[in-house]
């Protein structure tokens, strides 16, 4: 996987720009990734989603779908569309340094 520099850190990314190494992500990087896609302010609500995605990934080995974030993470789907507009599943994965969810629902 190619290496690039984001927020002064060397990270591995895939061809779309998603981070590929779980451990290369940190909170400063999330702020830079979010600002790359037009989310200039990561609020507590954003962090709640990111923290859930990261910890769920550690347990499950795959990125949670929107439905899983709402049913297991307790964050309503409507809020996800407000926090990460239009394509929340992809955007929240990108900012969290994870791959896109593989599940359909």
């Amino acid at each position: 996987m190619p290496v690039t520099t984001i927020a002064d850190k060397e990270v591995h990314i895939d061809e779309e720009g998603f981070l590929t190494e779980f451990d290369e992500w940190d909170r400063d990087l999330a702020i830079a990734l979010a600002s790359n896609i037009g989310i200039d302010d990561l609020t507590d609500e954003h962090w709640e989603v990111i923290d859930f995605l990261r910890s769920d990934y550690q347990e499950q080995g795959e990125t949670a779908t929107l439905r899983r974030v709402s049913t297991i993470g307790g964050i309503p789907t409507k809020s996800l569309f407000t926090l990460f507009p239009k394509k929340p599943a992809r955007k929240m994965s990108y900012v969290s340094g994870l791959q896109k969810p593989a599940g359909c629902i």
Partner: protein
Amino acid sequence: MTTDKTVEAIVPDFGDDDAQRKIAFVCSKGSLDMAYPALVMASGALEQGIETHIFFTFWGMDMINKKTMGNLQFSPVGNPATHMPAALAPLPGMQAMATRQMKKTLEELEIPDVPSFLEHLSDMGCQLWACKMSVDMFDLDEDDMTPLLTGVLNVSDFMEIIDGAQTMLV
């Protein structure tokens, strides 16, 4: 020794500036196996930020009728995809068994039942329309149908709403 190639940072294109895509599903079937295809595809479309409409008509009304929506059935009769001997399919109890089995499989895959699925779609911004003619035909009141409905429409109003949409009949 191989080294990873260093590249310029790549920002994924989430298509935020693309023209608004629009998609519409017409659900005309009331069996369990015919309810899911449109629901799953609608969910995928909404995740992609696509404006999504579902129009329920004829037997598809069972998907939004409070009395039936949680209890759709799967019948193996006349369905070669079950790979069941045709003579067995109509036996008493076979439909209940096939329905139970399908529901169990869906549950194991964490796929929600039809009422929860519609709620999920509605939360994602899906617009759910009931067909006016079917409402009259089945003599339904507003109270008979899920409160998640966006409204009741006749076909010509629906055509106006889905102007420019990709449309699929299920």
